[in-house]
């Protein structure tokens, strides 16, 4: 666990920012005042993000690019929400690229379409060597960051991509898959995980694929929290207490997620969080209060077809959000965890868990027919 401690230590060192935060702590009043305070805090937000960039938990870019005949992310691409100038402006340091497929793609077609998505991710990253770099582990994310590149992590993919086969899970992992959403398959339904579903989670732990539970049933989330040896993610979940969206998490689940040291990545979508920067900040406050500062993160959810809050229309808006949080008295240490540290912690713990599990467990040959009958 030495590496984990290193990571936390780095975070603590940014205490230099603390006085700035205290100074702006009272900005909780009138709308205009808050905006003024936000503008005032913007340079500090930029400085903080320069040290601790955003690890963004969800981008729909691969599917959006699939339908463009030509694009250049390096110069800037108006047809999508995400390009390198805006990623740099928003201080995005790592980005999960969703491999989710449209509904209805199942069985072998889902496997084929997922291979095509992974191929597209690889092709796009290779075509932008100055800006992007593929990363398959926490260490590679750090490397990419140190080279000034945005780390691209393939995932989450939907559960349908496995076509009910652990061999396919391992092959997709070999191709770089890092996160899998536990919904959209017979083994992860409204009643929770079946026996095969639990075996999928164990095999994911063994190979280092992190479980994503946004969109999964409450029963699946609870079961995954119990059996997963590595922390889980919710790549796109806000607080249901503030906004009753089915993918948002109720308070009790947020508390359970926090107790299990999972990570709730709050999406910047009008539908799930509300139409303004302050609405997003309200969700972040709420999730932090219930799950803890080590268990909350950010999920841009750009290029997924969702509408975004004003001021957060694309990846360049993150400093505005961080300024708002500074205005609300978030400490620099908590902000560093929010933007970067928590995602790195989850990836690194998943890497450790996999390494430890591989010593103890052989690849699972279980089939869905055997376990679920």
């Amino acid at each position, binding site marked *: 666990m030495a590496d984990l401690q290193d990571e936390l230590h780095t975070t603590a060192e940014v205490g230099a920012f603390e006085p700035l935060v205290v100074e702006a702590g009272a900005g909780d009043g009138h709308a205009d005042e808050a905006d003024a305070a936000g503008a005032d805090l913007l340079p500090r937000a930029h400085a903080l993000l320069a040290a601790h960039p955003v690890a963004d938990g969800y981008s729909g870019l691969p599917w959006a690019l699939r339908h463009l005949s030509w694009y250049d992310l390096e110069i800037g691409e108006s047809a999508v929400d995400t390009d390198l100038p805006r990623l740099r402006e928003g201080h995005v340091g790592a980005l999960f690229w969703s491999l989710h497929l449209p509904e209805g793609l199942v069985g*072998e077609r889902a496997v084929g379409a997922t291979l*095509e998505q992974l191929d597209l991710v*690889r*092709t796009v990253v290779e075509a932008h060597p100055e800006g992007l770099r593929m990363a398959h582990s926490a260490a590679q994310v750090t490397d990419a960051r140190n080279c000034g590149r945005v780390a691209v992590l393939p995932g989450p993919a939907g559960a349908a991509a496995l076509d009910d*086969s652990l*061999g*396919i899970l391992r092959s997709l992992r*070999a191709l770089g898959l890092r996160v899998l959403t536990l919904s959209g398959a017979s083994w992860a339904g409204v009643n929770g995980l079946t026996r095969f579903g639990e075996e999928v989670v164990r095999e994911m732990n063994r190979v280092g694929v992190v479980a994503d539970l946004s969109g999964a049933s409450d029963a699946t989330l609870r079961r995954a929290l119990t059996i997963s040896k590595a922390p889980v993610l919710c790549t796109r979940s806000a607080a249901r207490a503030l906004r009753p969206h089915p993918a948002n998490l109720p308070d009790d689940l947020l508390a359970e997620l926090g107790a299990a040291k999972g990570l709730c990545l709050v999406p910047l979508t009008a539908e799930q969080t509300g139409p303004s920067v302050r609405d997003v900040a309200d969700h972040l406050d709420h999730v932090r209060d219930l799950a803890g500062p080590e268990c909350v993160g950010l999920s841009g959810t750009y290029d997924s077809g969702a509408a975004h809050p004003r001021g957060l229309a694309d990846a360049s808006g993150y400093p505005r959000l961080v300024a708002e949080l500074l205005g609300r008295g978030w400490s620099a240490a908590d902000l560093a965890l929010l933007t970067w540290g928590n995602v790195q912690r989850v990836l690194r713990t998943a890497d450790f868990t996999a390494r430890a599990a591989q010593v103890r467990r052989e690849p699972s*040959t279980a089939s869905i027919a055997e376990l679920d009958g």
Partner: protein
Amino acid sequence: MTQVTDIPSLDAARALLAEFPVVDGHNDLPWALREQVRYDLDARDIAADQSAHLHTDLARLRAGGVGAQYWSVYVRSDLPGAVTATLEQIDCVRQLIERHPADLRAALTAADMEAARAEGRIASLMGAEGGHSIDNSLATLRGLYELGVRYMTLTHNDNIAWADSATDEPAVGGLSPFGHEVVREMNRLGMLVDLSHVAATTMRAALDTSTAPVIFSHSSARAVCDHPRNIPDDVLERLPANGGVAMVTFVPKFVLQAAVDWSAAAEENMRANGFHPLDSTAEAMKVHHAFEESHPRPVATVPTVADHLDHIREVAGVDHLGIGGDYDGTPFTPDGLGDVSGYPNLIAELLDRGWSKADLAKVTWQNSVRVLGAAEDVAREEQSRRGPSNATLEQLDG
């Protein structure tokens, strides 16, 4: 196993293989493991003697002087879900390599093959057997390459939308426009184009388009034994210009004319009993063995196979010859080549026929390594000129 040659040449063969081991183009162990034990690798541990169940285990690979093996990630072409099954086959090969690090080494390049030889490990490569494994998607083709697949046979026993098989009715007359694009993309990637199983028209079309050497991972000479799975002389004659390699297979029903005829009758019998001719389940094998009881099976021998090597050397030249046993992919094998330990018998036979050691080193090792290296060189060149192709079957074939 019948000892077919005298001891001195067998010793010489073993000595030669110790230095220049066999690169075998095709072994169906992964499919056998899928069918027999559903990938329960403990139930068929190749570190132990598996001669009761398989042609292949580590001790016999060592005894056979095998230094590199293309493990076939074959899946049946008459069932849906080929991409899914291919990924599972690839996973199986990766597990085998992980389980036996002292004997097997994953190899993705010619340099890896040489490194494995230097370490005394068996270079383990993968070959996909049939274009059905990519489901008409060049992105899926690239996914297979990324996972380590280094050749793809363009078809198996059935036609696919963009290429004709040797054992099906002609449909597109070789390769369709999309089929040519698949070959170009394989060249760009550095994945070898394998022309075993394909129709002669497809072989010629692929040779027209391919800028890299091609292989025949397990095919013999049609002039010696007239079976559509074998290579016609006009195609063999093009190998020197192309630089490719014909890896001679041992399958009796392809190398011995009497076995060709017997096999046609046996397959007819399987169909009459309601089994797919390639079905290898216990029940199907029972039917097969019953037929064999009443119809004595013509026996191929080491000299039968050597005749094919002699012929291909005449027509294509010794620089374009290799070996592809098809072990665990065929129920029957020639006498003296009963499993993967048999290669020294073949080398001894060729020594007895006067083949030089230098020529045999080419056949066993050098030619096949050269071909993969040449494909890598072509890939580097092509990649400097063009990016990945996303052409579709619909676009090109209408």
